[in-house]
Every structure is written in structure tokens, then in C-alpha cells.
């Protein structure tokens, strides 16, 4: 097949659809990072793999499922606390958080499985908030579901990527987790073994100024090693 097949984390859909519109014969399959990585280990014919999780990329590299020398970060994200539209900002202290959650819950991704959940747990632990909210979490299978819980008023607060807040008008950012509070949220990509020059071109474009602009418009931050 002449086309370039990209396996990408679902949260990249908005910018990636714009990016790939520039090319002919590029298709993107979106899914959870874990699901995608597993599929690649089972031989998915992905020319480019874009994950929101470096742990799974390590698995792919170790298993020789991607070209190890092509792995690089292309974006990063920040973690934010969201509340319903019009909610006042919430300082990231135990008292404020407890008051805001009251006897409801805090929506996050699965803290052991979904990248956004794993980052959220790390951030909360770093800020000494984990103990107090640990038993008041509502863990869901993807960030979009966490967002929906807040949007529908099912939970007063949720932890999602900054980029996700754009999805719904019903929510607003009430706090930003400091970058140092959690491991860098790295979006990392690599070429698959079947990748050809076309795939390389797409990946290059992703890292080009234009590509980075589109990612930025969607709320993504530049790759952190570039920032550093």
C-alpha cells in the first residue's frame, strides 16, 4: 500500500487531522495508547506510532517493533484541574481541594493504566494531595469520559490534559498542575519497520514549525526537551 498509516493516541485527533490533511494518502487510527502499542506488538502495519506514554514506547523499542533510532518526542502537555463552566479557580491545597470536592468525587483516568490517570496520581502525590483524595476518585477508561463526568455535573472536578478542556464548553480550567509535580507528559513518536520516505516526511512535518504551530493551536506544548 502506498499510503502512510499512523497509529495515534486519541487525544491527538484534533491537530493530527489538520496536519495530515496536507498529505495525500495518510490515514490515522486513533485509540488508547496501551491498545495501540499492544496492536503494534502484534504486528499492526503502522508506519508511524504516536503515543501519549513513553512507557509503552519503551516496550515497542525493546521488542524491536519500531525503528529504535527514530524515537523522539514531538509534543508535551500539561495537566489541569477542571470544573464546571464558571467555577472559581481552586488553589492546589488540601483544604481548597477538599472544599471543592466536598462529598463528591474527582474524575481522573485509571490511575494505574491510563496515562492521564498515571500522571494525575503522580501530581497529586507530589503535592501531598493523594492521601486526601485517594478514596474519592472516579477513575475512567479515558480522558474524554472524565471530562464528560464533569461536564454532566456528576463530579465537581476532574483532572485532564489542558488540551482536553477545549473539547467541551461546559467545563473550565480551575488550576494547572506545576510541570515539576509529575513526570513530563511526553508525546512520543517513532517510525514503524515498514515506513518509507512518505512516512518520514509526515513525521518531519510534525516536527516542523508549521506542524508545531498546529499542535500549539490545539493547546499542546512543544516537546519538553526542546523547552529545556
Amino acid at each position, binding site marked *: 500500500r502506498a499510503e502512510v498509516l499512523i497509529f495515534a493516541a486519541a487525544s491527538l485527533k484534533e491537530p493530527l487531522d489538520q496536519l495530515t490533511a496536507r498529505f495525500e494518502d495518510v490515514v490515522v487510527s486513533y485509540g*488508547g*495508547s*496501551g*491498545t495501540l*502499542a*499492544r496492536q503494534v506488538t502484534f504486528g499492526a502495519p503502522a508506519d508511524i506510532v504516536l503515543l501519549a506514554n513513553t*512507557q*509503552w514506547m519503551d*516496550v515497542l523499542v525493546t521488542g524491536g517493533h519500531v525503528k529504535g533510532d527514530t524515537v523522539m518526542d514531538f509534543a508535551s502537555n500539561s495537566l489541569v484541574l477542571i470544573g464546571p463552566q464558571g467555577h472559581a479557580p481552586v488553589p492546589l491545597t488540601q483544604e481548597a481541594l477538599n472544599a471543592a470536592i466536598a462529598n*463528591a*468525587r474527582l*474524575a481522573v483516568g*485509571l490511575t*494505574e*493504566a*491510563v496515562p492521564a490517570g498515571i500522571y494525575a496520581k503522580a501530581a497529586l502525590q507530589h503535592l501531598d494531595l493523594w492521601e486526601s483524595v485517594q478514596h474519592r*476518585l*472516579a*477513575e*475512567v*477508561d479515558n480522558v474524554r*469520559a472524565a471530562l*464528560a*463526568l464533569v461536564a*454532566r*455535573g*456528576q*463530579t465537581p472536578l476532574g483532572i485532564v490534559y489542558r488540551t482536553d478542556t477545549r473539547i467541551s464548553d461546559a467545563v473550565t480550567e480551575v488550576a494547572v498542575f506545576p510541570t515539576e509535580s509529575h513526570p513530563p507528559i511526553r508525546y512520543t513518536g517513532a517510525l514503524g519497520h515498514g515506513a518509507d520516505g512518505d512516512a518520514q516526511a509526515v513525521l518531519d512535518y510534525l516536527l516542523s514549525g508549521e506542524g508545531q504551530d498546529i499542535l500549539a493551536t490545539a493547546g499542546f506544548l512543544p516537546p519538553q526537551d526542546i523547552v529545556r
Partner: protein
Amino acid sequence: MDALGPEEWTAIWLSLRVAFVATLAALPVAVWIAYVLARKSFPGRQVLNGLVHLPLVLPPVVTGYLLLVLFGQQGPVGAFIYQTFGITFAFRWTGAALAAAIMAFPLMVRAIRLGFEAVDPGLEDAAATLGASRWRIWFTVTLPLVVPGVLAGAILGFAKALGEFGATITFVAAIPGQTQTIPTAIYGLLQVPGSEPAVVGLVIVSVVLAMGALLVSEWLARRMAKRLGGK
């Protein structure tokens, strides 16, 4: 089953409880709807039938989202139920049970409806001429005769409820001890590299539970048929 930690065992017990309650709670409604579909003819019967089947054919995530919209704390139905009965579904095992019940509902209705179609309405006529009230006929004639169908439906529903994932996690998330069922645990494990042994353990548990339930249902149905058929 060394692969299963305490959290997995909690999930197993919770799954059983959720599936049990879901089945039990959905049963009366399923019986009623099945009866209406099997016996009554009214305009909109086909639409009702279609509605009942929706959770079977819609993507579970969509069902879960619709549940959130309707039964969430601010959802019209959810708010009403909370104000009236003081029951809240949010992040409680009750919500998991609701999601499981809704997803299992079409299967239950299908099986029970067959049960009703197998009951001779002539027996109900006979009971009426013997002076039995509608309610008495229902409870002493119709219902006992439809028991094999109800049983089959209930157990199939139970098995389905045990395996429900998409609607549950979307509606009530996965809270260990509250709403984290076997499927959620499996999903979580699947996202983590190298978790295959635990996944296999949980999959085996859910297969055994589901198969066990199905075998029991077939066995009960046959015993029942034997008793009534006299052979």
C-alpha cells in the same frame, strides 16, 4: 489464582453483587415488558420492542453516555429519582448495577418473552372462569408457568451483567470496592505492559462464572420442563 491480588478479589465479589442486584432489579420490569410484548397488541409495540433492543445494538459507550445524561445527578431522571426515593447512582455500586441492568435488559426480555409465548392463554381463561382475579391469575398461573423462561432470562442477564464494561465505566467510573468490576480491572491491566498473568487469571474467573451460570440455567430449565411434561 495466585495472579489475583486483593484488589482483583474485591472486583470479583463486587461484580457478583452488582450482577446479582442488576438482574434482580431488572427482572420484574423485564417480565412485565416481555409480557406486554408477547401478549398485548397496541400501537407502538414495535417501537417499544426496538427501544428494548437498543442497548444490545448501540455501542456501550454511547449507552453509558446516555445514562450519564439521563440518570446523572443533574439528569432529569436521576434528579427525580434522587428527590423521590433518595437513591443516587453516581459512583455507587447502584449505578454499576443500573448500567449492567440496562445492558442485560434486552437479553432478559427476549428470553422471557419466549417463555410467555409458550404459556397457553387458555389456562388463563380457565382460571378466570374459576373466579380468580387478574392478579391471582398472574401470580398463580401465568408466572409459575413462565418460570423456566424467566430463569433462563435472568441467568443470561446475570452472565451479561458480569461482563459489562463500556457503559459501566462511562457512567460510574471504576472505584475499587464500589464500581470496579472484573471487566474494568481487566481493562486496566491490559493497559499496563507485562500484566498478562493477572489478565488471564481474571479472564478465567469471568469465563468460569459465566459458563457456570449458563450451565445452571440450562439444567434448571430442563428440570422444570421435566416436572411439567411428566416425562
